[in-house]
């Protein structure tokens, strides 16, 4: 069996890698200049976090792989990100809704990881948390502004919420890897974060005049790697193209 700590670190690094790449797809085409810059900043923050998580994952694995090797030389079935973060950008509202749902979870998870028994994990969490808090603040205000905006912006945000809600449940799944992390004091049981998530998300949705979907049906298979959606493969062909075509290329 793979080292659970390696699995755990890949989950963290793959979340920020895949979401960071998705957000970077807005670079140059966002609706207004200010949002374009803000989205690029968010993407860069996430890629920076990825470098820290995946370098540590490579170190823990001890097979000579660094963050670049893990990011650019693995195929779909080796990725351990949540299904939520690989979902396509859709319109700007859908991108911001995805960001909001992820950030709400990310802030809670990183807050717990700051107390990790593994000092390396705690240090990366502490650094990432400052960025994640700002991302959550920005995404929350955007969700409120667009939700409680015009008839059209409200309809688009409700559609985004309805479309992405089935990807929320996976964030709170626990498996053997999580239980191993809990036993070693490295990370919390994700299931325990759900009340905190609801406490973050519900008031924002209320202010945004959006209706929280009733069904808690959840798509699963991203963080375990068992079944990614078809979107991840397409994302990887873009992201990994250069290293696949010209292995070890540098500039």
């Amino acid at each position: 069996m793979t080292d659970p700590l390696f699995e755990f670190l890949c989950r963290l690094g793959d979340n920020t890698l895949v979401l960071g790449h998705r957000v970077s797809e807005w670079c140059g085409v966002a609706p207004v200049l200010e949002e374009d810059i803000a989205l690029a900043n968010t993407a860069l923050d996430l890629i920076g976090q990825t470098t820290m998580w995946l370098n540590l994952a490579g170190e823990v694995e001890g097979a000579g792989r660094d963050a670049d090797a893990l990011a650019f030389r693995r195929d779909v079935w080796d990725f351990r990100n949540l299904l939520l973060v690989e979902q396509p950008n859709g319109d700007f509202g859908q991108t911001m809704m995805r960001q909001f749902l992820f950030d709400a979870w990310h802030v809670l998870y990183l807050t717990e990881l700051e107390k990790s028994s593994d000092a390396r994990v705690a240090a990366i969490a502490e650094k990432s948390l400052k960025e994640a808090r700002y991302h959550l603040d920005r995404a929350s205000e955007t969700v409120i502004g667009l939700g409680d905006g015009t008839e059209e912006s409200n309809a688009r945000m409700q559609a985004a919420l309805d479309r992405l809600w089935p990807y929320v449940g996976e964030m709170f799944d626990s498996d053997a890897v999580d239980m191993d992390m809990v036993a070693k004091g490295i990370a919390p049981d994700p299931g325990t974060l759900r009340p905190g998530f609801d406490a973050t998300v519900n008031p924002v949705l209320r202010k945004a005049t959006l209706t929280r979907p009733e069904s808690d049906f959840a798509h699963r298979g991203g963080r375990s790697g068992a079944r990614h959606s078809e979107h991840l493969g397409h994302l990887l062909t873009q992201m990994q193209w250069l290293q696949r075509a010209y292995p070890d290329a540098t500039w």
Partner: protein
Amino acid sequence: MQNEWPLWEVFIRGQHGLSHRHVGSLHAADAEAAIRNARDVYTRRNEGVSIWVVEASAIAASSPDEKGPLYEPSNDKVYRHPTFYDIPDDAGAM
């Protein structure tokens, strides 16, 4: 209906003890959004410790046409310009 967000002028204080300086302008829906946008557009490289935003329409400005009457009278009054003093090196920048 107005489709363009209002224009905001952005002022940033680079260090404690200095005054806020005008760094540029941007568009945003309201003051809070303007501060967030200013953070993203103007402070990514550790430029600031404090941000002010002012809606551009709230600024009263002098007209370029009044340049003569406003400023030129002081040019020929050399005693208004303290250029006759030797500043000791120890005093540093004034």
